[in-house]
């Protein structure tokens, strides 16, 4: 980092020299195609998580970037979410991160507080971001990540199944109402391999939501400890037992086999809590199966407090070890603020976080649904929690694994809560 100014100077010199050479070459032999910088381009790498559809459009945008910036070549790579993070954490240890990388809010502190990310102030164009969005990109008062888009939690459900069963999720419906809805829809479907809703207790994001609805939080403000006690976790992990006994939700041996697909895509699941931009992932396949999806606010026992907040769905960062900070920043600016790139990328990653993005994005029917939903809950949005502690990735995984023990009935909810506290406290301590 100390070398930054030197590096930048050297780079400017190099780029300058290269550009001159390019001009000369172009003048000398104009019809020989691109020459000069294009012959000896600067290589940067860019990686993200997602599926092939996302990879296709991202590659198109990157190709356009390369066309417009002849001296820069971008090497791209992608994988699914868990694989992506396994790769990034391993490469973080080897100081071998890609120049530009996709960041998740839950991982920001893990990478940012360990000096893996380059400060972006003055490097990336921050003038376009919509109010409030940049707040989630700071670690130790330094901007290290810029948001691509935002999302918030919601309940995604099969409106066709719910209508057929005569079940309505009235605004302000409670968790009990939700459980009854699941049970009625499952009963109405009566197929044995389709369910009105899923067990939601294995994801820490949803427990966080439940705690926020009661005015609590998952971690303490300084991120050094859990901010709830074992009895609350025991209660959380016991609350779906009835749904399982009645067969209203899919059993664990079924759901473990869904990955990497999803219950909606497989036409087996009627409702689930989730990030609202996931609608874009599920909806096309559900439509192919002849169904339709809708978004509702999550259930709450206190209608005045839904616990929602606007979270960056994804962020872009630059590795602190990059040799090409300027070019990496150019790529980020291009992806977030170039009207053509925005049109190509669409709402695949969520509704853009920049004003130029909002003006240029083509909003299809699905994105409109998400936009409408976000508008409908806007009045309930509260301040986001501080970036979760570095150990969050590992804690999130343990949360799911240990709840599996409850579902397989190898642990009681109370034992599982004990185990989780031991594991989480060890992980939090190891990061301090």
């Amino acid at each position: 980092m100390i070398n930054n100014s030197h590096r930048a100077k050297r780079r400017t010199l190099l780029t300058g020299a290269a550009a001159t050479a390019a001009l000369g070459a172009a003048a000398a032999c104009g019809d020989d195609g691109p020459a000069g910088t294009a012959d000896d381009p600067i290589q940067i790498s860019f990686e993200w998580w997602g599926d092939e559809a996302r990879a296709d459009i991202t590659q198109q945008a990157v190709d356009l970037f390369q066309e417009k910036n002849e001296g820069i070549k971008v090497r791209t790579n992608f994988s699914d979410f868990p694989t992506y993070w396994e790769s990034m954490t391993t490469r973080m240890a080897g100081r071998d991160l890609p120049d530009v990388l996709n960041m998740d809010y839950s991982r920001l502190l893990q990478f940012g507080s360990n000096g893996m990310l380059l400060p972006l102030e003055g490097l990336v164009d921050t003038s376009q971001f919509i109010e409030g969005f940049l707040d989630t990109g700071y670690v130790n008062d330094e901007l290290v990540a810029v948001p691509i888009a935002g999302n918030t939690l919601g309940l995604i459900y099969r409106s066709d199944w719910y209508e057929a069963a005569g079940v309505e999720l009235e605004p302000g419906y409670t968790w009990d109402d939700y459980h009854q809805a699941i049970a009625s829809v499952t009963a109405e479907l009566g197929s044995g391999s389709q369910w009105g809703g899923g067990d939601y207790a294995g994801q820490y994001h949803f427990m966080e939501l439940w705690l926020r609805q009661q005015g609590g939080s998952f971690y303490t403000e300084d991120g050094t400890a859990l901010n709830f006690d074992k009895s609350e976790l025991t209660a959380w992990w016991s609350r779906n037992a009835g749904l399982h006994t009645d067969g209203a939700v899919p059993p664990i041996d079924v759901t473990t086999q869904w990955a990497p697909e999803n219950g909606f895509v497989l036409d087996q699941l009627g409702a689930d809590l989730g990030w609202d931009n996931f609608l874009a992932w599920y909806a096309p396949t559900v439509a192919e199966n002849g169904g339709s999806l809708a978004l509702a606010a999550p259930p709450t026992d206190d209608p005045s407090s839904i616990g929602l907040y606007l979270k960056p769905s994804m962020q872009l960062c630059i590795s602190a070890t990059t040799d090409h900070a300027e070019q990496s920043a150019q790529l980020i600016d291009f992806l977030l603020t170039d009207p053509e790139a925005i049109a190509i990328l669409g709402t695949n990653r969520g509704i853009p976080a920049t004003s130029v993005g909002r003006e240029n994005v083509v909003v299809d029917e699905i994105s409109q649904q998400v936009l409408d939903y976000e508008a409908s809950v806007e009045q309930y949005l509260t301040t986001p929690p501080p970036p979760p502690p570095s150990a969050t990735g590992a804690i999130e995984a343990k949360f799911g694994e240990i709840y599996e023990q409850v579902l397989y009935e190898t642990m009681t909810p109370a034992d599982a809560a004990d185990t989780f506290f031991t594991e989480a406290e060890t992980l939090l301590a190891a990061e301090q």
Partner: protein
Amino acid sequence: MIPWIIGTAILTIGPMAWSLYLSFTDYHLIRGGEWIGLDNYTAVFNDPMFYRAVRVTLLYVVLAVPVKLVASLAVAMLLSQRRRGMSFYRAAFYMPSLIAMSVGVALIWKALFANGGVQDRFMGVFGWDGGGFLGNPSVSILMLVLLAVWSFGAPMVIFLAGLMQVPQELYEAADVDGAGKWHKFVRITLPMLSPVIFFNVLMETVGAFQVFGSAYIIGGESGSPAWSTLFYTVRIYTLAFTDFRMGYASAYAWLLVLAVGLVTAVMFRAAKRLVFYAGEDK
């Protein structure tokens, strides 16, 4: 020798010594760490996940090693007959061991053992109602045992070589004495083969303790379902590369080295009584 020694020193001894040092520190993969003496080792023995991983690994060793060796010996005996087309069969039986560690095979394995997959439907005919092994923690380890057994190529080839070395005169003499097939197997084949059997048992046991690739692809970092495929090495990997606790993971790793060393020593002890070397006075 020199290049070999340099390679071993740099690529094996060096990292091993480094990890031994790390096991006495609270080394965090990114932030480094400090000397904490034996704290990691005492923490391991208070770690419930340690006992889970040990149970899963021991169960695998106890199941996979004997089944794999019996199967490979049986096939080796079939293939040791001198008939036409034998080399084709040998290649065919050896083939799986070359591809068993690939991602493709692991994915096929997952499909075979999913709910409604081949195993579920086949066993359903006989009244099985436990679903696919993939989602059932009480039997999921069998997937990995079967994968190991299926790839028995290496011990099979070694058995085959051993069987070829047994002097035919012994069998001819036994024929003259009127010994049956079983008698010949127990009295001639097994004793003559015992050094090879010992070698295979040793190699397979040591290998089984360290199984990682197939377990990691099928069960993932979390040893799903419900930690039932959380092998010792998978636990080490998760501790080191997801939790970043390199010091603690190194302590785990060195306990595995000790355990495997101990098992090997016990086996050599037992071998003194059980293994027969031709030409030896006894």
